[in-house]
Every structure is written in structure tokens, then in C-alpha cells.
């Protein structure tokens, strides 16, 4: 994050005091979208005073007793301390433009926004609540992929979250994803891409395999902008690329257009 009196790390334009925060952490000069912490994202999207955080009691276990250079439990504790979050997904019930919604936001600062059992379970609980209360589900992704330290359990969260989305489909409730930088691996190849509408933030990079893996395996030279929101839009993989400063407005329109009151009731 940029300190007051500093310059934009992308375009080097000077930034006045509080200027970046006032423009939703988007550089007012070049439009660079700074990474957002999950609580800030929730505050930007939700109507003031409507946020209720849910499923906070869910905490990661250590089913594999995974140990590399450190134990998994140690890595989790460090992430919790550093981010003041309990896990990589912040789950909330709130209103967006007066529409009640279930909102999930991944935070890349918490172990790379990786999806383990808690992220999967919070996602499912949001989906269930959305169905119970007949609300849409909105999820903001930012993730390095699956949580390796939970082994195959983390891969299964891909199936789990996709199954959870089917509950919304059957209840004919809108499910909207917002893909931010970066959205990769198992998160990109599961709940992110089975939404009714997929929105991407400008300049975000999305890919299933990482650029390094692709270049190493296939010796292909990747073009500049590979996997970017703009490239995904051109290749038909996302519906819209929306500037963060317009995001709440676009979401509100979508929620109105997809909300109850369609011609078949």
C-alpha cells in the first residue's frame, strides 16, 4: 500500500494525502488497481451499517499434519497474526444497493488467498444462507489456487464449492463472481467460472496454470497481457471488465436486472 506523500508504484505520479483511499485504492492518474484487503473490499461494496460477518468460528485444522520448512499450523498462525483475519475468505451478509446479498471475499494476503477446507465451508454456508433467505451470492476472488498443505482435501473444495452453486441454480438465485488480481489454479477452475455473470477487475491476471509452468512445459513465449482481464474478455471468458470505482454501481444494476420479478415470476 502507498504511504501518504508517496508516488503511485505503477505510474510514479505523486499521490496527495488520502487521495488513493478516496479513489478506492485505484490510482487516479493511471487507473492501476491496488490489491485490496478483504475488510476494505466488503466496506467498498456493502451499504453502510448493513454488514454482518458470518462463519467466523470456522478455523483450519491440520488433517495431514503437513510439515515442510514449517508446520502448517505455524503458517496459519502467522497468517492470522499478519492479516488479523481467521482465514482467507471473509464471509458476510449485507446489502448492496439495498439488495440483501451473501458476500464472500478472498484475501490474497492470507496464504495467497488459497482455498482449503475453511474457504470451502464458508463458501457453502454462504450459498446455503443465500438459498434460505432467497438472496443472491456475490463472491470476490483473489487466489493462488488450492491450499497445498491440505493435500487432496483442498482439491475437493473445488468440487464442494461447485456443488454448492447448484443449490443457487436450482433456486434460480443470481450468483456473481468478481475476479481480481490474481485469480488462478483451483479457485479459477471452480466456483469462479460457474457463475451467472463473471466480472473482472482491470489489469487482473487470471490463469489456470501459472505463466512460468506454461513457459517451462511448452517453451511457448507468452505475449504481454497474457491472462489479463482484457485478454479474457477478448477470448470470451468473462462478461465484463469493470473499474473498481464503478463496481458497486454495476453490481447493483445486475442485482436489479437478475432479481425477482422476471416475466415467469
Amino acid at each position, binding site marked *: 500500500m502507498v504511504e501518504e506523500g508517496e508516488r503511485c508504484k505503477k505510474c510514479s505520479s505523486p499521490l496527495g494525502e488520502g487521495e488513493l483511499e478516496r479513489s478506492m485504492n485505484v490510482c487516479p492518474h493511471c487507473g492501476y488497481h491496488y490489491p485490496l484487503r478483504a475488510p476494505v473490499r466488503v466496506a467498498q461494496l456493502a451499504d453502510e451499517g448493513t454488514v454482518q460477518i458470518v462463519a467466523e*468460528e*470456522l*478455523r*483450519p*485444522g491440520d*488433517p*495431514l499434519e503437513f*510439515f*515442510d*520448512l514449517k508446520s502448517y499450523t505455524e503458517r496459519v498462525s502467522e497468517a492470522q497474526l499478519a492479516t488479523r483475519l481467521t482465514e482467507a475468505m471473509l464471509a458476510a451478509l449485507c446489502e448492496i444497493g439495498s439488495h440483501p446479498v451473501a458476500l464472500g471475499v478472498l484475501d490474497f494476503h492470507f496464504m495467497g488467498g488459497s482455498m482449503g*477446507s*475453511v474457504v*470451502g*465451508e464458508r463458501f*457453502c454456508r454462504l450459498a446455503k444462507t443465500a438459498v434460505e433467505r432467497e438472496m443472491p451470492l456475490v463472491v470476490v476472488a483473489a487466489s493462488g489456487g*488450492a491450499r*497445498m498443505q*491440505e*493435500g*487432496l*482435501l*483442498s*482439491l*475437493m*473444495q*473445488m*468440487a*464442494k464449492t*461447485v*456443488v*454448492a*452453486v*447448484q443449490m443457487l441454480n436450482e433456486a434460480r438465485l443470481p450468483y456473481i463472481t468478481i475476479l481480481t488480481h490474481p485469480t488462478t*489454479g*483451483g479457485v*479459477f*477452475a*471452480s*466456483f*469462479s*467460472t*460457474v457463475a451467472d455473470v463473471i466480472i473482472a477487475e482491470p489489469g487482473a491476471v*487470471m*490463469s*489456470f*496454470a*501459472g505463466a512460468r*509452468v*506454461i513457459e517451462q*512445459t*511448452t517453451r*511457448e513465449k*507468452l*505475449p504481454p497481457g*497474457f*491472462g489479463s482481464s482484457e*485478454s479474457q474478455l477478448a*477470448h*470470451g*471468458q468473462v462478461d465484463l471488465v469493470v473499474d473498481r470505482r464503478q463496481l458497486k454501481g454495476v453490481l447493483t444494476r445486475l442485482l436489479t436486472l437478475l432479481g425477482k420479478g422476471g416475466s415467469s415470476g
Partner: protein
Amino acid sequence: MAEPDKPSSAKKQSSDEAPSLLQRLQELRNLPAMQRATYSEEIKKIQDRLEALKARDGSKAAWNTVQIARHQERPQTLDYVAQSIPDFLELRGDRLRGDDKAVVGGLGTLGSRRIVLIGHQKGHSLQERQERSFGMARPEGYRKAVRLARLAEKFGLPVVTLVDTGGAYPGKDAEEGGQAGAIAKSIEAFANLAVPTVTVVIGEGGSGGALALAVADRVLMLENSVYSVISPEGCAALVWRDAAEAPRAAEALRLNARDLLELGLIDQVIPEPTGGAHLDHRVTAKRVMREVQLALGELERLDPAERLRLRRAKYLRMGSFQVSE
């Protein structure tokens, strides 16, 4: 001067070392407390060495399984077809863009049942492996699988999938063609399928590229197959910055069939012929297809809506977490 055979003799030594260490440890432990104290350092040393040996044996065993799972002569989808489905008719193409040879599928009769069979095909010869991208599917492959699964549903045929891939194909065209979405949509399609579904991991179950064909009512694994969120090499490169640590990663990931059964992530382990499936395709195929038919028999007795509910409930339950106050 060259020291002939050093690595292998050192390895051999390590596995012979444990019994004598254990014996010495026992002797020291049997000493009277006063005397034992003077040997405390040696006791500690022996304990550490035994731990190290155990860890090495563990990662050696895990790595050995990975090697068997990847064996070039291990039976692949078309070998099972040759052994068990004499009237198999391969159907090709995704009806959108192309035909991905990393995934094969078609119609055939298994025992007394007509089925749709879909599986990864890595290829045996180098030429076949190149044609089939070593079983690494592109979006066309996953979309072909979905198309065939829907065909099965229309005609009320059960679907059997055989999983054997290092992962989805990592390439520019695959990514731009919607690799992530194709995998997600395949997971979704198999989660929603109204007909009975059985998956067998027959070799390598590599990450999302495997899961795309592995959402099913029953998931079985051959004894020496592996199933993992990331390849041991990939994991080692991330954690230790060294792909040579892959054996350690293989152990830490608990990617073998027995561990995954214990974790409740798969339903059954199918034993292989001694030494591995590659030594006897006929026996392996017979065992696999017998278990597949038994599973299909059980699944067919369920009401379709109930079967779908159970499949979904199984995936919704998966996860391991704590609930704090």
C-alpha cells in the same frame, strides 16, 4: 578415484541399519538408571538416527508409488477397453472446436451393461504420448467428456471414468480457450448427472485436470495410483525451491490410495498384481471392472433423485476444519 556404486550401497546400508540400532537402544534402555544417564547422548543420537531412517523410508515408499503410478507400461484407458469392452465404439470431438486425444470416450458393453466410458489416455510409445499430450487435456478434452456424459444421461447409461493424468495441459491456447472454465463446467456437469457414475483413478490423478473427470457417486483407486492437489515436483519446487525434494513432498502430500481412503476422500482401494499393474494388464483390468460393476449394481438400486442427493451431500461434507468458540 571413482567410488563404484556408492549411492546404492549407502542406500542398502540405511535399511539394514535400523535393526542393529534398535537392538543397541534396547540394551542401553535396560541399563540401570544411573548408568543409563552416562549414555544419554548416545541414546538421543540413536533415536534421531532412527527417526531420520523412518522418514527416509516413508518418502522412499511414497516416491516408489509415484513411480509405479507413472510407469509407461501401466494399463491406460484403451488397455482396459481392449481387455474388458470388446464392442467399444470411440466417439470423438467436442462439437465446438476439436478433438483432444488426451481424453478418449465412447460407448460399449461392460459385462451385461451398456455404458459410456471416458478416460485420460497418456499413450505408451513416445509418438503416442506426443499425440496425446501425455494425457494432459485441453478445454476440448473436458468439453468432449461433458458432451459424452450428457449423451449417457439422455440414454440412461451409467458413466465410468478412468483418471490418469499429470494435470491439465499448461499452454497458451488452452488457457485462452477457457481451460479453467472447461474444468469447472466439467465438475459441474458430473455433479449434476442423473445416471450412476463411477470413477477409477488408474494411474496419476493430477490436480484439477484429474478432478474434472473424477466427480462421481463412487471414486475408486488402484493400489499404486496417486491422487494429489499438486505434483510432488511442483510442491517441492514451491516449498524447498528444489524439485529434487519431490520424494519428501510425495510423502507430505499423502497422495497414495490408502491414505486417501483413511481421509475419507475415496471409497475403495483396488489391489494390484504383485509388483504393480504394469506386470499384468489382464488381471488388473479384470479386478477393476469387477469392482466397477459391483459399484454400478449398488448405485442402480438407488432412486435417481436420491443418488444425486447422496453424491452432492458427499462433496458438501468434504473438508477438515475446527469450530472455535
